[in-house]
């Protein structure tokens, strides 16, 4: 009677633990997707601002060309090259930003302000996304997730090498 009860409790606990683990992984996968969608959106907006800056009067032809090129690269990049392309855009923006803060007109100033607000968000967005990806990969290595195939058919999330000094 007593062993039966204990056995029952163990089974119950195991079942609960399995469902708990599945929920946990599902939550992580969901976060990888939403954080990427969010980050992607922010980066697209950044590229758009970069193009606007490039076409403004503040930019000299050389930096305008540089910026346009970098922005297009960032927009067209495949997922694997995305990080490199975004770093390139960051570099180009950084160059221009230095010149523009000393001179530049109000329209450009507004763009720059928007850019710096966006930069703050991108920084947080990267942190959230990188964390979600690392967590998910870490958790999926554990035996319980492998044996019971708790990941289902969800693909292993891609690690993006966003450098720390991306901005």
């Amino acid at each position, binding site marked *: 009677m007593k062993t039966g*009860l204990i056995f029952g409790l163990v089974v119950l606990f195991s079942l609960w633990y399995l469902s708990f683990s599945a929920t*946990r992984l599902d939550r992580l996968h969901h976060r990888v997707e939403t*954080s990427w969608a969010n980050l992607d959106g922010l980066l697209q907006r950044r590229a758009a601002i970069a193009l606007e800056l490039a076409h403004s009067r503040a930019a000299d032809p050389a930096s305008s060309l540089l910026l346009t090129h970098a922005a297009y690269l960032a927009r067209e990049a495949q997922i694997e090259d995305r990080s490199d392309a975004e770093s390139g855009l960051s570099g180009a923006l950084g160059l221009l930003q230095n010149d523009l803060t000393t001179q530049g007109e109000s329209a450009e100033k507004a763009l720059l302000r928007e850019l710096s607000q966006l930069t703050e968000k991108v920084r*947080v967005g990267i*942190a*959230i996304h990188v964390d979600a990806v690392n967590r998910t990969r870490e958790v999926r290595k554990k035996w319980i997730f492998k044996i019971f195939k708790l990941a289902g058919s969800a693909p292993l999330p891609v690690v993006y090498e966003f450098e720390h000094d991306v901005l």
Partner: protein
Amino acid sequence: MPSTKKLKIGIVCPYGWDAPGGVQNHVRDLAEYLIAHGHSVSVLAPCANEEILPEYVVSAGKPIAIPYNGAVARVLFGPIAFSRVRQWISQGEFDVLHLHEPAIPSISLLACWAADGPMVGTFHAAAKRQKAIFALGPILEPVIEKLSVRIAVSEASRLTLTEHLDTDAIVIPNGVYAERFRNGRAQQKWSGETIGFIGRFEEPRKGLSVLLEALPIVARFAPNVRVLVAGPGDTDEIYKQIHPQLRSRISFLGRLTEEDKADFLSSVSVYVAPNTGGESFGIILAEAMAAGAPVIASDIPAFVSLLGEGRYGSLFATEDSSDLAKKIIELLRDDETRQRLSIAAQERSKFFDWDTVAEQIFSVYEMAMVGSGSVGLASDSRSWGRLLGREGEN
């Protein structure tokens, strides 16, 4: 705040609301800032006395005192607290939950366990001593993982977090109402060759004894020097430690009101923070900087980063009273450096002004909310509750 959308924000404070402490102050200031900007905020905290609570605080019950991090922490956990936490979450319909110090056994951890949805966690502690608690890693991991974003209040607490829980965090400093301190008026009674100290001076880690040991040397070179100690505590024990000839140089002012504190910090020649450790940010030091006091602090990690490796204030070797004496004498004699440090410190304090800090925290809320609905009870928490109930019946 430029944002137009008003949020419903739930904040959980792990420590007793009516006990003094840095985390409580931080939560209070943040809540009041957010409310002043039109958001609706509910704070869940343990409270010893439920009659004197501000409107936005909900009591989770009476806190229990446990020794923690070299001091006594007033926290709360257990089944009754858990059910209160769950009730608060399900009734609150929050857009985002902000949990403070979720890695210690407290209602923050319980809330993190019970809730599902956009959650932000702030880690305050920076100390090696918590190993025992962080050794619970495997249990904590899936819970802490539910936080969408983790915030550390300093580089030191971020390191603690990465070391013990293997997870990264964004650094957003603690907030100070810098303007209040900027507007402090210098008072005659606290001016002159004065050294200021604020804190619960009985606690060894606040380091008052280091300052007192330095005093005889300082007095030899600066004959008019006076030490002004503000903060609650028993002064008799301290007086016994001091050489009778030096006793007249020390005044205990007791606990100061917020306005008096601003005036005090604006008046003293030098503010000294001789803490020996256990400090993760240094809120009083930050307030002293906002008031424009030239500061001297021990070189513990939190202070080193707060003072920008010495650019915004002078640093001395921790627990080394002769080094402290040297730094005090140097600064008291050098009006020019004092002036320069005062301006640099005030400039620096803009980084941790609430206007900046709350903006950053709010932006984190917005990021945490992307793609997930509002806060509710987690499904596994519900089944856990049922399981517990079933076990109780057997």
